[in-house]
């Protein structure tokens, strides 16, 4: 007989999904470079979060979108095994956020219903107003996410980039008025906000409570740092 009492234990998966805008406007003012830098910078923080949360298996996925959604990391990948390859923005690419959210909803449908897991953490970054050239509206895409059990219970955070970001749509994506909605107006802010959002989301999502976690706690990063260069670009 094994000396371990009660049988085997398992860590619950915590799915962490970045949904990233790579539309043509991300080429302006170095936004795509800043986004790549931000993701590169956030990974060590997520590895720290994984080490600080031994009860959760932190798994990363990345979905980029412009004219169409494209999985950059499709298989849930332990954060220690993620090697970031820089994203390229799509010249003149649209902001097909509705289509991306529909793809996200389908991926959430594939999560094992029988497997216990923490609610996913989803972080959306976008610099523009959602387009619908693919025929899927933002509202339809969002509904596809919310129709899924995991999507409805997910910790959803969003960051706007620059003054053209559609903060109204991003607020609808978050869904909870008490959760901060941030807008980055320069590369330093983008890094700072993504790091904050990632840590806040992993902390809230990984509480050992079943069901919709209570909202993101902790204040967002203090006041703006650096010059608001993206808010002055047309």
């Amino acid at each position, binding site marked *: *007989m094994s*000396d*371990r*009492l*009660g*049988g*085997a*234990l*398992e*860590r*619950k998966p915590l799915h962490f999904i970045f949904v990233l805008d790579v539309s043509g406007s991300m080429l302006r003012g170095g936004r795509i470079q800043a986004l790549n830098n931000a993701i590169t910078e956030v990974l060590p923080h997520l590895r720290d979060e994984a080490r*600080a*949360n*031994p*009860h*959760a298996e932190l798994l990363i996925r990345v979905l980029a979108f412009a004219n169409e959604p494209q999985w950059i990391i499709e298989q849930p990948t332990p954060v220690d095994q993620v090697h970031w390859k820089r994203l390229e923005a799509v010249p003149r690419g649209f902001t097909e956020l509705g289509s991306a959210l529909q793809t996200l909803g389908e991926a959430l449908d594939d999560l094992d219903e029988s497997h*216990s897991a923490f609610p996913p953490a989803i972080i959306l970054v976008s610099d523009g107003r959602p387009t619908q050239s693919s025929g899927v509206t933002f509202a339809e895409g969002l509904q596809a996410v919310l129709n899924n059990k995991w999507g409805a219970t997910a910790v959803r955070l969003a960051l706007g980039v620059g003054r053209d970001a559609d903060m109204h749509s991003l607020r609808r994506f978050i869904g909870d008025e008490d959760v901060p909605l941030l807008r980055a107006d320069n590369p330093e802010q983008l890094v700072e906000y993504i790091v904050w959002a990632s840590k806040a989301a992993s*902390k809230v999502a*990984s*509480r*050992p*409570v*079943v*069901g919709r976690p*209570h909202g993101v706690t902790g204040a967002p990063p203090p006041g703006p740092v650096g010059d608001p260069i993206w808010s002055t670009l047309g």
Partner: protein
Amino acid sequence: MTSRWTTLSGSSIGSVHVRDQLPLQDAVLTWADADGSQAVVAVADGHGHRLHFRSDTGAALAVVSAVEGLRRALPAIGALQGDDRREQATTVLRDAAAAIVDGWTDKVGHHLEAHPYSAAEEAQGAASDALRAYGSTLIAAAVVDDLLLFLQIGDGDTVLVSAEGVASRPLPEDPDHDGVHTSSLCQPRPLDALRLACLETTDAPVGLVFLCTDGFGRSRVDADGWWRQTGEQLLAFSRERGLAWVGEQLDEWLAEPALIGGDDTTMALLVRL
């Protein structure tokens, strides 16, 4: 021949509590008389939500109230005679449970008098529902001679292991437990959520009883069968390696689910010698 009983217990803080700088919010208390004919064990799980910011105190007061209340009731239960002894004992146990809830409420009141809510806590509504901050579950078991008594309010596990090593749950499922919320000592009319049972060990010889907070079972791969395995193992270990060895292992056995599951993990055993 009257059975003799002893108790063991342990508790381990959850890794999420360590991460969030929260205290251990479980509590455990045991008692056995000198000749082992009577014993009481109790565990409590203080709620983790920020609204229950004194739940570590609430849990500690819950196990004290339970052990006090059951110890007071045991002489009367032990003196019961007749064919309907078990039914009479159930009635006394129900009264004891009401006294335990009253005792907990009084103790919380005394604690609150000595440590009033701050203005910030009152601004969060603490004063409008004075018991809420102390919210906790409670599970207790007691034995007097050949009568075993169980009571429970809220989640957690109560498991009886027969002398043959077969585990069973002596209490009914909590109809209000939805996997998200638990019944609580701090809710209005907590006795509505009381589950209790009284068993005669002469009907079916008992090996041991274990009580645990939900942190112990929550992360098990075998979500439906872990408690059976735990019961079988505890009985086999206590017979083959001795209770001293079991006692030495408890901290390690509780630390692993507390680390991997994240929640505080507590267990108390009532073992027939």
